[in-house]
């Protein structure tokens, strides 16, 4: 089951995700606080996950870049993550992996959350770009972008 978010809702969720990712990146934020950001970030990602456009964008991004992303994640966190390119399945696996990692290797878990939320954010960003493109095409029909 999916839904279509209004673009303003999607934009707001992307901004929220940005804030949580920045919290995970920031060296001045300690592990306990970083864990809070990761949890809130995953909740925001779940909301984005339901959006059909984000799902499609994620699938395209993942099919093209999944192998490289998986290698990057393995090198930085030691986690072997297999992307299915289905956002619902992957997000479920991401959250399970994070929950198993945070209480064993918290610093690696932090990197893992940061990278995964960034991937979802990138997929969501792409929908913004597509919308702008459509808007521009609508305003200037026939013009090449």
């Amino acid at each position, binding site marked *: 089951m999916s839904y279509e978010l209004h673009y303003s809702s999607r934009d707001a969720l992307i901004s929220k995700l940005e804030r949580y990712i920045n919290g995970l990146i920031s060296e001045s934020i300690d592990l306990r606080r970083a864990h809070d950001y990761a949890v809130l970030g995953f909740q925001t990602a779940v909301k984005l996950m339901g959006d059909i456009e984000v799902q499609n964008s994620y699938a395209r991004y993942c099919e093209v870049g999944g192998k490289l992303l998986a290698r990057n994640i393995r090198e*930085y*966190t030691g986690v072997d993550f297999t992307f299915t390119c289905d956002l619902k399945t992957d997000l479920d696996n991401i959250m399970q992996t994070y929950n198993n990692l945070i209480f064993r290797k*918290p610093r690696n878990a932090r990197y893992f959350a940061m990278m995964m939320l960034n991937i979802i954010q990138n997929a969501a960003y792409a929908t913004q770009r597509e919308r702008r493109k459509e808007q521009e095409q609508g305003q200037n029909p026939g013009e090449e972008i």
Partner: protein
Amino acid sequence: MSEVIQTPIDITELLTLTGRSRVLTEKVKRCYALVTNPKTFEGVAASLRGYDAASGGWFIPHATHARQVIQPIIQECVVEPLTMVATGSDAHSLVTLAEFADMLGVDVDVRAVSLQDIIELKLSSCLPQGDGKKPPAYADLVNATSNCLREIVTKALVTLEHVGAAIAFTSRRGE
């Protein structure tokens, strides 16, 4: 990225960060003094020298006696202060324990073990294990015990410093 970073301890900063609790501050101050004082380790050596192998000590694993020698300091400088800041099974407490275990290089899921278990696992890896057949090499045992104690207490102080920082940040933001 996964290697343990040895954070240098600045006692002034440490006290500022943990200063919200007078009891904790006093503990941190005393424990910092303990692990930076060579006399502590002379005391460890003196206690180990008193180990009486003739009365059955040969058959006690080396680590067992070394554990007894450093137990009071670990209790005061690791167990008590960490228990004060990681009080339960909430996520922040568990992350605090996980950070401590990770810094010590103990690979465990802290949902399944206690702070005591983490310390025991560390002691088992950093103290020489006796085989019950020959007495320990005295110098090796003293060195290992001193290094082990210093590492466990120092990492506990670093963990406390991080928790203090978290409290300070939260407080500053009025959250």
